[in-house]
């Protein structure tokens, strides 16, 4: 989608384009197009490159080390990153805990943690979900008991992505059992090398290790690690509501990467008809997904324009999440289709013969994509939220 750009934006666009032209190794691109995350080492390397360029925190205000970019600039940045097959930045530090810290954290927390997020020195993971608290997060049971100058944390977190590589974790824990379920929950920062933390991998259908259970047994952290006030942790999540639209927007902008991969696979696949990409039925299906992706890009433009105007986007962030996740699933499924019989060759057995590059990626992408309608508020929960908040039902 070409935009009408002001001359200064056009200059900025060229800067960004130049940067990406030299910053993305070929082997990253394959992974990226599958809608898969790079390995943690590579994501950290990417974050460092951006930080070196001064672009480590594109959505943050300047005073906290961010770029202070306008939404227009952000849109340009993401467009170019997407076009260059650059990955999305890993967001748990940058988009989740970072903004909470710079909004509600103490000066000491700001000074210490924020630069380390930007530089890639600290990798954060999120300790929210629990076995009995998924969609219904307020049902969480992890306790943080005050003991002198410390909190002593006990509990069991689930679906803690990248806990196995993270340096720090932000968790929601119950500091009181009184009042409504949402009350008495606090937000606490935990170093991952604190004694009493045990991490157990959760193996998932895509055969990648990206998520974990985290067991906390008498994990003792200084009371100063609490963010904001005790018992107010639930409320701090609200700052994220407004930022979530940015996460959704950024993620959705990377969708065309997967569609390029589908096109490439279909251009390679020979069929009795000729190349798959020339087959009218396949073209119609690809066009359908591409058209819906254009629609999502248009929705993102509206979000960014709202942000630029300082306007409330209402439920549009949720809508982009809903549509983006569905489309990722459709696009990766179409990619598997484009591979044909070879999609049954997921891994070589015995001798390490060469597999086509995109083969396991297409399948890993299609399998991993199943979780996109579940995490970050499942599609069912998103619809509940829209019904309640936007439609007043």
């Amino acid at each position, binding site marked *: *989608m*070409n*935009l*009408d750009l002001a001359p200064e934006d056009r200059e900025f666009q060229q800067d960004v384009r130049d940067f990406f032209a030299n910053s993305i190794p070929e082997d990253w691109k394959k992974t990226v197009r599958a809608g898969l995350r790079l390995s943690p080492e590579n994501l950290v390397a990417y974050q460092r490159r951006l930080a070196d360029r001064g672009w480590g925190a594109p959505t943050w205000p300047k005073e906290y080390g961010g770029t202070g970019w306008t939404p227009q600039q952000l849109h340009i940045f993401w467009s170019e990153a997407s076009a260059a097959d650059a990955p999305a930045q890993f967001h748990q530090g940058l988009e989740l805990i970072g903004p909470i810290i710079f909004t509600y954290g103490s000066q000491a927390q700001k000074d210490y943690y924020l630069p380390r997020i930007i530089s890639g020195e600290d990798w954060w993971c999120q300790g929210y979900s629990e076995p009995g608290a998924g969609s219904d997060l307020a049902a969480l049971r992890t306790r943080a008991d005050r003991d002198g100058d410390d909190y002593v944390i006990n509990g069991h977190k689930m679906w803690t992505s990248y806990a196995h590589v993270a340096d720090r974790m932000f968790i929601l824990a119950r500091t009181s059992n009184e009042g409504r379920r949402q009350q008495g929950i606090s937000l606490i920062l935990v170093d991952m090398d604190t004694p009493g933390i045990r991490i157990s991998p959760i193996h998932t259908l895509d055969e990648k290790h990206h998520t974990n259970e985290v067991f906390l047994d008498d994990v003792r952290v200084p009371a100063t690690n609490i963010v904001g006030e005790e018992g107010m942790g639930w409320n701090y999540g609200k700052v994220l509501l407004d930022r979530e639209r940015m996460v959704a927007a950024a993620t959705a902008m990377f969708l065309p990467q997967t569609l390029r991969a589908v096109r490439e696979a279909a251009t390679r696949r020979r069929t009795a008809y000729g190349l798959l990409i020339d087959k*009218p039925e396949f*073209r*119609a299906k*690809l*066009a*359908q997904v*591409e*058209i*819906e992706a*254009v*629609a*999502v890009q*248009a*929705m993102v*433009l*509206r979000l960014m*324009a*709202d942000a630029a*105007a300082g306007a409330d986007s209402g*439920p*549009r962030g949720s*809508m982009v999440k*809903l*549509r983006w996740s569905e489309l990722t699933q459709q696009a990766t499924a179409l990619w598997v289709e484009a591979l044909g019989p070879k999609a049954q060759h997921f891994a070589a057995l015995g001798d390490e013969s060469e597999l086509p590059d995109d083969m396991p990626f297409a399948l890993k992408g299609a399998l991993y994509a199943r979780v996109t309608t579940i995490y970050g508020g499942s599609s*069912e929960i998103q*619809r*509940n939220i*829209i*019904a309640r908040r*936007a*439609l007043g*039902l």
Partner: protein
Amino acid sequence: MQFAFNDEQQMLRDSVERFGEDEWSAADRLKRLAEGREGTARRWAQMAELGWLMLPIAEEEGGLGGGPVEIMAIMEGVGRHLMTEAYVSHCVLAPALMTGGGDHCAALLEQVGAGQVRIAAALIEDDDFDVAAISARASAIDDRFKLTGTKTHVEDGADADWYLVSARTGGAPGERAGISLFLVPSGAEGLAIQRFRAVDSHRHCSLDLVDVDAIPVGVIGEVADRIEAALDRAIVAHMAEAVGSMEAAVAATLDYVRTRQQFGAPIGSFQVVQHKVVDMSVACEEARALMMVAASQLASGGDASSLIAAAKVRVAQCGIAVAQQAVQLHGGVGTSEELIVSHHLRRQMMLDLAHGDRDHHKARFAELTR
């Protein structure tokens, strides 16, 4: 990228909104439709007076030079109130085809802007939406042209005074070269007109032409691009209508599910109903975003063709889905003439067909992005 109307556009929008409420309130719809051509003529005169008819006409040709965004401000209201006046056909498509066509065209366009003349585009043959799939022939005799052929569908053509007819001065069906455009008055000798009503109460026609005298418009043999560019403008205007209609259908449905009681509760309290309304509103947002980006791109003069093809497909899909769901959630009463929702459904179905259905534009998108 413009996502909000400026003051002038907002005033235009408000004025259309008032007109819609006065003239096309949902409760009076059946009465309005029963008035037939007389009602349309009365409203058309009012619209001329309000300056809307001349809005899209170029300033050089006596119009106001309004662009896609101004047209959008009008068409959303047309959609919200399901006005059956053929604004897009006569005031967007015809002027886009005729602009720069010389004195005769300028004179006619002035009359169009004043509401004195209606011109409809006769482009489609052989049941196909492709502008190049035509075989009507124009033979030059001295400086004059005679047309012979059949136009299967003329959008909003039933009550037109003139027709803009595409015909071949060269080339074979399917080729883009050799297509020319001609003006033919509705009373021309050799012209037979069959008039039809569609389910949305729009009035169309088909034409049979045998040696009909015709006046050329634009460069002989080279108007395929111009026709497609003009159609793109008409399509974007129709998309704004579709979005207006969708949003009205969602609003009506929201009202209904909040008040309709079954099993001792408003049906809007049932989760399945809620999620369906959510999907309707997501579809609205999708269509609105596409429509606005397309209008904006068209306004900026950039190449918008693949974007418009994409938007045409998706807006139609969203529009039909929303209107179908609106009927479904209203239950039996949703299928009645008296309630507005089924009128939205019928209009959405026909808007899909106007100037190429979903399949046509999907194939076009695939071709343009090949």
